[in-house]
């Protein structure tokens, strides 16, 4: 240690003018803050100036110090001065690198001394409001990286050896797998994973810079080219191992299957019930997001990560959106759709095709019954596309101020919209239809609504609910006529949902009742369930049967039991179960009794197929 400190002290003495320069830079910062405000108050100018100077001196001096400590001695063949003394290579390296580090950090400290002295207490109070610790630690880490980087760049530039080719080629070659893995992670919208990986890669690089600088000097000693050669080989060899590990890690992250989903973000069962598209964050893989198509026979296929799958009515075609751009795709990119991808499902699985169809802004999409056409609304413009030809068939402006809640094909040429509108200061629910042959739209119905209300439409778009603060009403979309009024039925008292065949199920929690209504609003059955229980939306695990999970608020394991309700008889069967039914955003829409209607989630967020009648339970996919 004595030798290290001796060398450090010598190097610092040689560069002592840097400390004077730092002090003067602090004085200049004060003068600048006093004569030019840059649109800020004087204290803020001083604070910004102080932070800037800390960053400039810690990183800038770190780079210059690292660049000059050893490379200059090697170039000028002065390393023999140290090598001829009884000091080890590690002591020489340690002494010089420590000197560069102290030079950077001490000058970054000195630069703020006059600023703090002049700023006085107000400045200190101002500093306390800022993230001083963050700036200081980041600058310190920056100095650590800068010193090693400065040394490496300097010996590389000065060596003029053929090994410089490695320094030029290696980063480019290593950037390819890194970019590939980052793209995988971006495709999974794993922002945290990308951030963590960046920190890990930079840390590994800086660590290798330091290690390679030490080993390079120890092996190369007085020979600059040898020092550079050893440094480069170790640095890039080490980085190759790091990147290979990163690639393997990326592969492992990407290999996550549906059994690894820890929380389901979206579940989109096929209307045919043959399969379901599920997506969510992956267990043990930070925020990595994946999407899978799961089939009834227990298979799973990874598909383009997406947050929403739009099916055709026959369930054979679907579209998903690629977001965030080709370079860095992201499911959670805020706006737009960079490419519409068409998925085709058959007995063998799913095939996908990326189209040239894209939308710059948020969009709502729907497919025709056989999946040949796609209608979309984006930026208040309605378009219809032929998916096979990737050709736009129609384009029209939307009716002004229409907030579309639901969009659907009534047949191959008619598309219906159900949405909210504000007409002359009054809130309405409006239904419009677009005729593809005439390429024009028409208003079908318009109904006044409470401004606080929300709407929910049936799967066929033949009816819709208005959920107001004082009750719910069921309307005929074609006329707007009220089919059913349920006063007092609000979100606080329960929920209402359309079953797959557009019948309505209303849950009255305080009363402990389920009410089943026909499509046109006639009451079919009243079913008794425990009062004040908490039941979820139902799934339809068998024709004529509902499955409702019950949960208890505030419990560690809230899912307690499953209620099987026979819609024909009103009979309800209680089953102790910790499973909860998997239901899409628009309520149960898949064919009752199909694979998609019997998917449940376990307490540890695993997906299982469950037949509540026979008790058969198996993981999905069946692995």
């Amino acid at each position, binding site marked *: 240690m004595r030798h290290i400190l001796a060398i450090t002290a010598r190097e610092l003495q040689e560069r002592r003018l840097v400390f004077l320069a730092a002090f003067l830079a602090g004085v200049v910062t004060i003068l600048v803050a006093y004569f030019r405000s840059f649109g800020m108050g004087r204290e803020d100018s001083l604070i910004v100036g102080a932070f800037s100077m800390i960053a400039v001196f810690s990183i800038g001096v770190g780079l210059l110090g690292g660049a000059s400590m050893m490379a200059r001695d090697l170039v000028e063949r002065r390393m023999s001065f140290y090598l001829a003394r009884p000091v080890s290579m590690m*002591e020489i390296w340690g002494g010089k690198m420590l000197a560069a580090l102290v030079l950077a950090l001490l000058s970054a400290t000195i630069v703020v001394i006059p600023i703090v002295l002049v700023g006085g207490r107000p400045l200190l109070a101002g500093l306390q409001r800022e993230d001083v610790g963050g700036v200081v630690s980041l600058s310190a880490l920056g100095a650590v990286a800068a010193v090693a980087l400065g040394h490496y760049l300097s010996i590389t530039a000065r060596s003029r050896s053929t090994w410089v080719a490695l320094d030029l080629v290696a980063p480019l070659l290593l950037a390819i797998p890194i970019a590939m893995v980052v793209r995988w992670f971006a495709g999974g919208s794993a922002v945290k994973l990308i951030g963590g990986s960046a920190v890990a890669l930079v840390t590994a690089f800086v660590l290798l810079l330091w290690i390679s600088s030490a080993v390079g000097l120890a092996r190369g000693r007085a020979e600059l080219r040898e020092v550079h050669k050893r440094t480069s080989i170790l640095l890039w060899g080490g980085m190759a191992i790091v990147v290979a590990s990163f690639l393997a890690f990326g592969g492992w992250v990407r290999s996550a299957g549906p059994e690894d989903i820890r929380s389901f973000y979206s579940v989109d069962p096929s209307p045919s019930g043959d399969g379901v598209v599920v997506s969510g964050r992956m267990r043990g893989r930070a925020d990595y997001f994946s999407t899978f198509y799961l089939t009834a026979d227990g298979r799973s296929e990874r598909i383009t990560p997406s947050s929403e799958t739009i099916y055709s009515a026959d369930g054979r075609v679907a579209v998903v959106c690629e977001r965030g751009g080709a370079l860095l795709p992201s499911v959670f990119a805020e706006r737009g759709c960079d490419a519409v991808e068409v998925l085709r499902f058959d007995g063998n699985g799913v095939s996908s095709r990326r189209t040239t169809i894209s939308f710059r802004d948020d969009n709502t999409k729907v497919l025709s019954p056989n999946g040949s056409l796609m209608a979309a609304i984006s930026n208040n413009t309605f378009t219809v596309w032929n998916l096979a030809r990737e050709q736009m068939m129609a384009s029209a402006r939307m009716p002004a101020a229409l907030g579309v809640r639901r969009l659907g094909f009534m047949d191959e040429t008619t598309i219906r919209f159900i949405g909210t509108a504000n007409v002359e200061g009054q809130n309405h629910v409006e239904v419009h239809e677009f005729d593809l042959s005439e390429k024009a739209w028409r208003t079908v119905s318009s109904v006044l609504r409470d401004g606080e209300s929300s709407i929910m439409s049936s799967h066929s778009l033949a009816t819709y609910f208005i959920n107001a603060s004082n009750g719910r009403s069921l309307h005929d979309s074609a006329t707007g006529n009220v089919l059913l009024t349920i006063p007092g039925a609000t979100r606080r008292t329960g929920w209402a949902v359309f079953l797959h065949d557009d019948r309505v199920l209303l849950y009255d929690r305080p009363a402990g009742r389920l009410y089943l209504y026909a499509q046109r609003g006639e009451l079919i059955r009243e079913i008794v369930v425990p009062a004040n229980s908490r039941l979820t939306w139902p799934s339809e695990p068998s024709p004529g049967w509902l499955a409702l999970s019950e949960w208890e608020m505030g419990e560690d394991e809230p899912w307690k039991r499953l209620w099987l309700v026979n819609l024909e008889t009103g009979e309800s069967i209680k089953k102790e179960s910790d499973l909860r039914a998997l239901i899409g955003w628009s309520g149960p829409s898949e064919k009752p009794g199909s694979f998609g209607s019997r998917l449940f989630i376990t307490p540890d967020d695993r997906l299982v197929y469950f037949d509540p009648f026979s008790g058969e339970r198996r993981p999905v996919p069946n692995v």
Partner: protein
Amino acid sequence: MTTNGHAALAARNLTVRYGKLTAIEGIDFDVAPGSVYALLGRNGAGKSSLIRCLLGFQKPDQGQALVFGREVWRERASLMKRVAFVPEEPDAPPEMTAAEIVRFCGRLYEGWNDREAMENLNRLHIPLKVQYGKLSKGQKRQVALAIALVVRPEILILDDPTLGLDVVARKQLFEELISDLADRGTTVFVTTHDLPGLEGIADRVGILRNGRMVLDEDLEQLKWRFRRIRYATPAAAATTAELEQLETVEVRRWAAGIEAVVANYSDTSLERFRASSGIRDLQVTPMSLEEIFIAISSDEQGAAS
């Protein structure tokens, strides 16, 4: 001073390459403790590469450089306590003054004596507060030498120490300093182009040529077996074959006769040559180290030993 029976300095099959260029190849030699070893060679012969290996600055591509029987590449730091080095090119940081250099070295060596170092510098009239970079080349060398001596090394390696020194300083270096060190038992390994200075000081001489050690021999023996002979022309043609028996290194034919440098002189072989050639006016003169070096260095075959 312990050497445990090992040579102070030694090389074993030492080879250094720079890419495709071989700087030194298969060098073997020993420097006895307490001796003065002069390594000679023309520029580019490989002297600096050899010294760098002997000091542990450079790893040989093959073979070993040994100091007191220990591999210097592996044990440089501990061996440098016993070795001092005066480089050909001044290597101290140019911003430091001589006094600062002394103080800095004092923190690296155990038993360092600052006062002695300062006295050495004063004796040499070195300004203590002038930056090293601003000193003359001779002064820089004297600073390096003064510091080297404070260490009281068991081995002193001098790489062309007379470069930049005036005549007086040169004479002092060889006749006083090196002789004095040798008398005290210090092993001195010196490379120089100032060959007259080595006469009477060096115990052994090594000559490098194109990276190979073409000669490694006691100076006294070397000077005994290398002689210059001269004789008149008329018999010259008839005696060329006989002349080869004396292992000539250099043969010059003049109008007045023949002059040759023989590498394996002995009274017996000369008498045999005289008898067989019938030459009566044969003159034999001893050669200086410089003359021998020139003769060997210009000999294409390099058959010096």
